[in-house]
């Protein structure tokens, strides 16, 4: 089965059911399938190489969904782009994946001057509005002009008419590339196949017991692998995604949850912390809600307890995953949560988790080692980065970099990380990347970056900077510099200046001691 089949099957089984709701507009599966097929038919006619990459710079919306599925329908490879990235980083990704098509929402058209003029591989640009492009070599197409042939036709007739589809995708063909921050600071393209994404989608549907009457409130971006999982699972189950991009106003989100009678809500720890501490969430009844899911970093036990106390009758799924695992790896069954708080749970169906020592041997229960994953969800590898790939995948086994142990019931507990990755507000940030960018400032001699506990973000990024002798740097100056060099979520929240950094005898910075200061 390939990804486009997930939509096709739901369109055949539930043509009249609502598939997505956004800003008061809704779309049924028949319409979603027809629109995807129209865009796929257009993409198929373009002069593109086999398996060409189609980059998608688009906020969560109904359009995102049909565009995303259309890429698979045309037999091409989707590259969802983080809409918060600066043009410099977007350009790096477009060049790295050699995207031939860029689908861009008009609100991001301001980036185009920097992107299209220099990203040599792009041949076509699609947008929802007329936008100006200086590079005359590029072909610009407005999306609305591509939608029509499917309107008013039954799903069955669309399915039998193969003219709108590309070549069939084999399960192990590359389906999508999701870029994540690498430990070296350079974004890494995680290559996921149809088998990876479909197997993980079906396993997630199984343990969440998703049905066609489920609908989830989506506040997480679809370009983020957790958001992508919400999209694929609900479309595949014949359920609905209710999109609301206004999480900065939690009351608005809560009103949408009630108005649209969603059965599920999914968030990262900071979402739950904000809802529980800064909104009327705990007092809302949310009568139609069946479940919560949480992933994207460890949520503090007291927040889990607060969530249970506020909603004792709802199913709460604490989950663990990685982009490299498509992403779900483990979950805590809700009926075991109270006794297993602090655990990331047990493997999801079809996935095997083993804790290995440094010699690659599985350790007994209770002993810590590196959490490894095997199964159909393990990525194909990193795009054009064999060195990094070789470090994390050995004998088809994914080495997650997380240190963990299992209890006697087989429940897994994360106890630390091998690499210095800060998990802040659901984002993984490489301390090394932030250090490298800050060191590019001409007056910075040394810098140490690490995570510190934060009520809302889980971890906040703290940077301690040593200016070069005889030079003075202001806080505003360094913040502005970071803004030019880093995505907003990677900019340190706390910045301090010191004359020197504490060090071990080896010369390595003693971040443990720094964190206490």
């Amino acid at each position, binding site marked *: 089965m390939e990804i486009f089949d997930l939509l096709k099957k739901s369109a055949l089984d539930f043509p009249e059911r609502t598939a997505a709701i956004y800003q008061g507009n809704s779309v049924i599966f028949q319409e979603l399938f027809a629109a995807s097929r129209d865009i796929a038919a257009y993409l198929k006619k373009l002069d593109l190489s086999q398996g060409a990459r189609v980059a998608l710079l688009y906020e969560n919306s109904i359009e995102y969904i049909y565009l995303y599925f259309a890429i698979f329908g045309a037999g091409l490879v989707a590259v969802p782009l983080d809409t*918060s990235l600066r043009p410099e980083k977007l350009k790096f990704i477009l060049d790295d994946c050699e995207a031939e098509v860029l689908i861009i929402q008009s609100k991001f058209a301001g980036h185009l001057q920097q992107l299209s003029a220099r990203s040599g591989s792009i041949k076509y640009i699609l947008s929802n509005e007329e936008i100006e492009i200086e590079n005359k070599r590029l072909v610009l197409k407005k999306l609305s002009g591509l939608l029509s042939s499917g309107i008013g036709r039954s799903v069955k007739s669309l399915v039998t008419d193969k003219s709108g589809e590309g070549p069939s995708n084999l399960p192990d063909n590359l389906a999508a590339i999701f870029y994540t921050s690498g430990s070296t600071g350079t974004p890494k393209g995680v290559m996921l196949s149809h088998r990876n994404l479909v197997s993980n989608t079906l396993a997630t549907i199984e343990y969440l017991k998703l049905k066609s009457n489920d609908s989830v409130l989506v506040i997480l971006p679809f370009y983020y692998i957790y958001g992508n999982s919400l999209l694929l699972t609900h479309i595949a189950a014949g359920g609905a995604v209710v999109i609301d991009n206004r999480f900065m106003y939690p*009351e608005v989100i809560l009103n949408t949850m009630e108005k649209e009678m969603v059965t599920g809500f999914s968030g990262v720890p*900071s979402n739950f912390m904000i809802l529980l501490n800064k909104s009327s969430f705990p007092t809302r009844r949310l009568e139609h809600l069946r479940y919560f899911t949480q992933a994207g970093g460890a949520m503090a036990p007291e927040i889990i307890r607060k969530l249970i106390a506020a909603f004792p009758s709802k199913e709460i799924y604490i989950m663990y995953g990685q982009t490299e695992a498509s992403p779900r790896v483990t979950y805590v069954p809700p009926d075991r949560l109270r006794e297993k708080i602090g655990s990331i749970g047990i493997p999801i169906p079809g996935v095997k988790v083993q804790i290995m020592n440094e010699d690659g041997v599985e350790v007994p229960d209770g002993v810590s080692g590196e959490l490894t994953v095997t199964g159909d969800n393990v990525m194909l590898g990193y795009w054009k980065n064999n060195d990094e790939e070789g470090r994390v995948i050995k004998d088809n086994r994914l080495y997650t970099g997380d240190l963990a142990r299992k209890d006697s019931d087989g429940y897994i507990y994360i106890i630390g990380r091998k690499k210095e990755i800060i998990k802040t507000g659901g984002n993984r940030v490489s301390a090394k990347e932030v250090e490298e960018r800050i060191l590019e400032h001409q007056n910075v001699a040394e810098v140490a970056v690490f995570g510190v506990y934060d009520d809302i973000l889980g971890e906040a990024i703290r940077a301690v900077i040593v200016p070069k002798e005889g030079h003075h740097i202001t806080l505003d100056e360094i913040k502005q510099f970071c803004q030019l060099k880093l995505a907003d979520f990677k900019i340190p929240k706390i910045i301090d200046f010191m004359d020197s950094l504490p060090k071990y005898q080896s010369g390595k910075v003693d971040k443990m001691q720094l964190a206490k200061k």
Partner: protein
Amino acid sequence: MPALDKNSARSDLKEFIVKAFLFGNKNQTFADSDSFMDKGIVDSTGILELTSFIEKKYGIAIEDEEMVPDNLDSINNLVGFIARKLG
């Protein structure tokens, strides 16, 4: 309670937003009517910093139910909201 000086509130709020969220980059301009959400100026944790600044600066308490775009999502909305609270 004294009535709000809207012009000075406008400039104080703008100064805070530029400093806290645009990292002092005055070249990144925005209009008083621009939506913070649409322009990507403030995010879900930033709005908490902004409301905490307003509570301290103007001595008002912002209830959870008041955390809505109509009250908070632009300089104009903020000034109107603070004036109503003080009025």
